[in-house]
């Protein structure tokens, strides 16, 4: 076997292993229980409630993340200032923090006994055991996914195009809106999809910080976990739906994202 063919074989083998490893649990979910029983298990109050709650909180969290994260990423991408590197590291920190630790941190910061507890209490804001608390936990764990992508997308913009906008009389705000956002659109959409997927699957921080109560804080992942012990089929069904929704989100975003092959012509 020539060197080139051997290397290609190695690459192919690696890809096969990775694909199998990643796909097997997901395929098993769908195959273990037939589709008929799956659908039947879904038709129960608790499951629907959990799914609806999941969609509600993740969409609200995504809106918050995009609203706050986009200007943040623009600032980090276009201005240099002292502490910029530190700021970027802080923004990425939740990525490496285990979800349960994130939940504990949120409790320590925003819980009744936390740093801001008294202030929140005076303002009449209740987070623990509330749906709002779930949104807070989701924003915390998922925002780095969006901000990193947005930052990369803005950084990849041609700096002369930004400069051109400025020389044509557009201030920073107009440049951001009319050149920055359209130029970075693909990256922003991809980042939003990643953040949404992460939020949909969030478990540890939600459980620790907001608790688990049907209709209020029990999102789909929490419901799956609660169901696992005495209604395995129900857990499977809900898992299948969650996997399907997440997969659909990722696929929907694919065209906007790219997928250019390096050194295109030769396959």
């Amino acid at each position: 076997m020539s060197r080139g063919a051997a290397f290609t074989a190695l690459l192919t083998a690696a890809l096969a292993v990775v694909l199998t490893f990643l796909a097997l649990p997901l395929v098993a979910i769908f195959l273990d229980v037939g589709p008929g029983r799956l659908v039947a298990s879904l038709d129960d109050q608790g499951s629907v409630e959990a799914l609806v709650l999941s969609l509600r909180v993740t969409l609200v969290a995504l809106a918050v993340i995009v609203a706050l994260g986009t200007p943040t990423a623009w600032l980090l991408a276009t201005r240099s200032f002292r502490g910029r590197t530190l700021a970027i590291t802080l923004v990425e920190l939740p990525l490496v923090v285990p979800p349960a630790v994130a939940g504990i941190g949120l409790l320590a910061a925003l819980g009744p006994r936390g740093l801001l507890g008294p202030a929140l209490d005076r303002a009449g804001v209740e987070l623990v055991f509330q749906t709002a608390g779930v949104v807070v936990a989701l924003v915390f764990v998922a925002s780095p996914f969006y901000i990193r992508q947005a930052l990369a997308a803005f950084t990849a913009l041609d700096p002369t195009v930004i400069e051109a906008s400025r020389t044509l009389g557009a201030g920073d705000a107009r440049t951001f809106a009319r050149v920055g956002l359209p130029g970075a659109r693909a990256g922003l959409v991809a980042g939003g999809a990643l953040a949404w997927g992460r939020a949909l699957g969030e478990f540890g921080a939600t459980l620790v910080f907001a608790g688990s109560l049907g209709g209020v804080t029990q999102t789909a992942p929490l419901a799956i976990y609660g169901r696992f012990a005495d209604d395995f089929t129900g857990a499977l069904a809900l898992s299948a739906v969650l996997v399907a929704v997440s997969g659909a989100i990722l696929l929907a975003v694919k065209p906007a994202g790219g997928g250019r092959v390096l050194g295109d012509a030769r396959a």
Partner: protein
Amino acid sequence: MLALDARARLGDFDLDAALAVPGGECLALVGPSGAGKSTLLRVAAGLLRPQYGVVRCGDQLWLDTAGGVDLPPDRRRVGFLFQDYALFGHLSAWRNVAYGLAGSGRAERRRRAHELLERFDLLDRADARPATLSGGERQRVALARALARDPAVLLLDEPLSALDASTRSRASRELLELIGTARVPTVVVTHDFEQAALLADRIAVLASGAIVQTGTASELAARPRSAFVADLTGAVVLLGTAGRDGDLTRVDLEGGGSVASTDEATGPVAATVHPWEVTLEREAARHEDSARNRLGVEVTSVTTVGNRVRVGLLGPQPMAAELTGAAAAGLALAPGVRAVAVFKATATRLVNR
């Protein structure tokens, strides 16, 4: 009048330059890449803040680092043409041009943008995206866009360099006309002396962050103040050591041979002569004339430029001669042919190195 004075750190050396361009005049900044030409342009536009700088446009103070004045680019009325045009890829041609038009209503902006595009003969491409336009079309859209706001100064960064040779000549003529009608101070940055000579009223030669000479194209070519400027203007440059020889100066050339000059100089010098003052003779013909410089050369290239022929030569050092087509043909010049380059001592300039 655009007045600029700036000092900045530029990698290996410091930029320290000042220039003043009256309204209606075009100044070209010429020099090798990295000399600081684009930097000066960016300082004028407000895209770069130098360590020290003052920029004045008319009676408006745009930059005064000492006094804490630094108007952002969007508050300066500049028309900036970027080297790669920097068009907005997601907008059509007319929207690109309309980008700088603020204030007026949408219909008015549209009308003005189309008006400008028509002036640049691009009306039929008004709705096209930059990606579908040719290089020359993109250059014209970028120009139209820069002019849309009726800028107070025009700053053009290598306006012709990205164009292919055939488009360039047409673009040069259009650009020249545009600069003429704009009537605002214009600064053109280019690495090509011939482009500068064509477009500008005055040329400033920039090398390693400093302006080494300013003047019209002919002044620079006729009286270069250094070997660098001479080389830039396309003169033949011969390096050697000078000493008196009667009432002439004799220069012993590196690589062998010597030439005489009516200029006075001693020590290490560069002897320069214009290619069009160099005649070529076949080796057979011999004249004895101490007032004429004669160097044995070999032809390395023969290039036709319009009705002239530029002949690349290799003597003790590289040289060039410019002949009419007829003369070149008569001499049957071709690479490898041996000849003698002849030029007068009075046409040989000396500059100290």
